Every structure is written in C-alpha cells, then in structure tokens.
C-alpha cells in the first residue's frame, strides 16, 4: 500500500479519477451552455451527419421510384379512399372544434390548441452514440433560435425536450430517456394524473404516481397535463397498455405505449414559444 502511495502514477490516476467524478457531477443535469470543446466537436460532425441523412432520404426516394407501377396505382387508390375518410372526419372535427370553443367561452376556460405554438421544423441528423441515453440530434441550433428546454413534438405527439444546443445543431432528450419526467393526464377522464417517465426503451414508457382509486382503462389516451412549465397542455404522449398496483398498495402504475415511433423519427417540430392563452373579445365573436 505504502509502495503505491509513493508512486507518481498512483497520484496521477487518483487525480484523474477525482477530476472525472467532479466533471460527471457537473454534467449530470441539463446545462444551459455547453463548453466550447463540446460545441466544436458536435458542429464538426454536422456536415457529415447532414450529408448521410440527405443520402438516406435520397435512397429512400430512389427505392420508392423503383416500385412497380401497379403497386403505386394500388397505393394511390388506397390513399384516395383514406383521404375521403379523413376529409369526412375533418368536417366532423371542425364541428367539434367550434363546439369546444363555444363551451370554453361559456366556462371561461383558457383555450389550448396549436394556434398558440410557434413551431420550427427540423430534420433528425443523428441519434445517441451509446445505449445509456435516448437522444437525437437535429439540424437546427442556437443560430435558428432554438433554446435549451424547448419542447419538441411531431405530428403524432410529444417527442422530448431540447437538452442543449450548438450553433447549428441541438440535442433533444427523448421522453423515453431514463432521466425524463412529464406530467400527464388521461385525456377522457381528466381526473387521473400521473408522471410519465422513460424506461430507456424506444417503445415503452411508464406512468407512475397514479392514485389507487383511479379508473384507468387499456387503450386510453394519455396527454400532457400542462402542470409543468416545460410542456404545453394537451399534447399526446401515448396509450395505456397495462395497469398494475404498486407494492405499497396506494398507487398504480401503467405501461404506456408511446404515440411517437421513436425508431423512425425523421422530422420534428420545436415549439419555440407557447403563449398562455387568454379569451379575447375576438375569440368571443367566434
């Protein structure tokens, strides 16, 4: 032991260990600013990642072009039918929207819809290089007005949150990451609140802290509760897959199947601003 203490290498290793443990502690949470070294390293990868991402999209386009004519005709027919169905559904939804607006006015509720978001569309250019974190890199950074903490969505629902930015890229921590927690609510019942946390897997989330008396059914839709300042209310998170009682008997937890296909993310939208909605006189006229 004393022999070891006398060695220079022992002190060098001990010094490095202490330095890295401090660094780990410093970088364990989300940081508003990343260091110059990190920024340079990340930005130097961007052109290559952009190139490969573009090439992949190009190849997908070519393979689609090579599909047989009949296959395409069949797909067009299918899409036409789907389009008709959706148009019909859209008409009904517009009706519901108008009705909801009137109800909100009556109840003097705040409205929460997409009109209140400022969105920036971004391409996914890279994913996490290891399995400990669930991250993606997008091609918009601080130069495009992206800031740490901004929520990220796509057409299907909540994707994650900006954890840090470089000039031309931003890193998004997905909601499937082990460190993420989002306040959530069951959309239909509106009474069951809980916290969605990531399990490190791409196709599964967990909703915890659900009171034992809550009626939570399979396939019920889970949305953001809006109780956290980071995520706007009402953004879809996923569907309930299974519910089980926690060992303490006081709480329930549910396995949630995410609405977003995290394995296939190609484009996302960053909510650069979401305003606290107010019922204005203009709204009242509608």
């Amino acid at each position: 032991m004393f022999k070891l203490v006398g060695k220079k290498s022992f002190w060098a290793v001990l010094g490095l260990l202490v330095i890295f443990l401090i660094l780990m502690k410093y970088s364990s949470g989300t940081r508003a600013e990343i260091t110059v070294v990190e920024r340079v390293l990340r930005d130097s990868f961007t052109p290559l990642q952009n190139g490969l991402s573009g090439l992949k999209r190009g190849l997908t386009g070519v393979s689609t072009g090579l599909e047989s004519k009949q296959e395409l005709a069949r797909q067009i027919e299918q899409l036409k039918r789907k389009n008709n169905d959706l148009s019909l559904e859209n008409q009904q939804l517009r009706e519901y929207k108008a009705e909801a607006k009137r109800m909100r006015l009556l109840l003097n509720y705040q409205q929460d819809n997409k009109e209140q978001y400022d969105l920036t569309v971004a391409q996914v250019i890279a994913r996490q290089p290891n399995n400990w974190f669930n991250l993606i890199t997008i091609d918009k950074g601080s130069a495009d007005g992206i800031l740490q903490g901004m929520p990220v969505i796509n057409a299907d629902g909540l994707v994650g949150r900006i954890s840090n930015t470089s000039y031309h890229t931003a890193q998004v921590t997905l909601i499937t990451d082990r460190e993420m927690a989002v306040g959530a609510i069951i959309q239909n019942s509106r009474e069951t609140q809980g916290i969605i946390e990531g399990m490190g897997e791409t196709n599964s989330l967990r909703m915890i802290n659900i009171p034992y008396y809550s009626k939570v059914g399979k396939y019920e839709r889970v949305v953001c509760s809006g109780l956290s300042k980071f995520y706007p209310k009402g953004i879809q998170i996923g569907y309930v897959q299974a519910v089980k009682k926690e060992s303490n008997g006081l709480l329930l937890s549910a396995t949630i199947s995410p609405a977003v296909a995290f394995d296939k993310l190609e484009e996302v939208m960053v909510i650069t601003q979401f305003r606290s909605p107010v019922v204005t006189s203009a709204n009242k006229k509608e």
Partner: protein
Amino acid sequence: MRFILLALLPLLAIFLQSTLFASYSIKGVVPDMVLVFVIFYALLNGAEKGARYGLICGLLEDLYTGRFIGMNALSKAATAYIIGKLQGRVFEENVAVGIIGVILGSLLNACLLFILAFAYFAVFNIDRSLFINIIYQSFYNIVITTPIYLWYYQSSKRGLLKETGER
C-alpha cells in the same frame, strides 16, 4: 500517420454509431464501436497504453454526448487496462482472441458503467432493461468485431497502425 489514424478511428466510430448503426439498431441498441477499437488497441499494445487510449476515446464520446462527462472515459480506461493485461499472454493473431476480448471487455465496461451510474442513482433510473441492453450490445459488438479485428491486426503488424517510433 499512425497517430492521425488512431485519432480518427474513435471519431469515425462516434459518427457511425450516431448515424448508420442507429438506423440499424437491435431493439434500439447500438454497438459500441469506440469500445471495440479501444479493446483492440489494448490487446495489441498493452495495459498502460491501452488505458491512455481508452481514456481519450471515452472522453471524446462523453464530450459528444455532453452528459455525465467522464463516465465513458473512466470505464473505457479501466476496461482497456484490464484487457491490456492479456497482451503477450494470448495468440493475438487469432481472431477468436479479438472476439473473446470484445465479449469480456463489453461485459466489464457495462459493469463499470453500471457502478458509476449507480453512484448517481438519484438522477439515473436503473432497471432490468439495462441488463437486456448490455446483452444485446455485447452481441452486436461481436458481429462487427470479426472483420474489423482482421484488418486492425494486419494494420498493427504490417500496415498504417504499425508502431514505428513516430508519434
């Protein structure tokens, strides 16, 4: 030239892990190509050099990820040190040595990462899926090992990675 190539390999690995391999992940798990290069280097150059290389490669990966900086640097340095102790005691020209080295190294590295993550348990949610990921990753690492090891060994003995005294 050797020095440039040794520096480029982990950067190439990070690039491929974050793009190409991420698109072909097994249940969301990507291989740790940086670790594979570190293990090869340690097997062929010994414990101390291996540990230094592991530290630098791990640090590069940590700086790219930007979270828990030092976690990969420490785990890869320690893994390389232990695997590097095998140098001279095994037939390095045999590709099976590379594969066994990668299996042992992957498990060892995962254990070390697990210990470090456990130290920060308050912000790190650990459960069974982590262990499943480790098994998938070890398997994925083995798949990519064979062709790379054949090239790496040849290059270290007769090619660009051969030690010439140049730094």
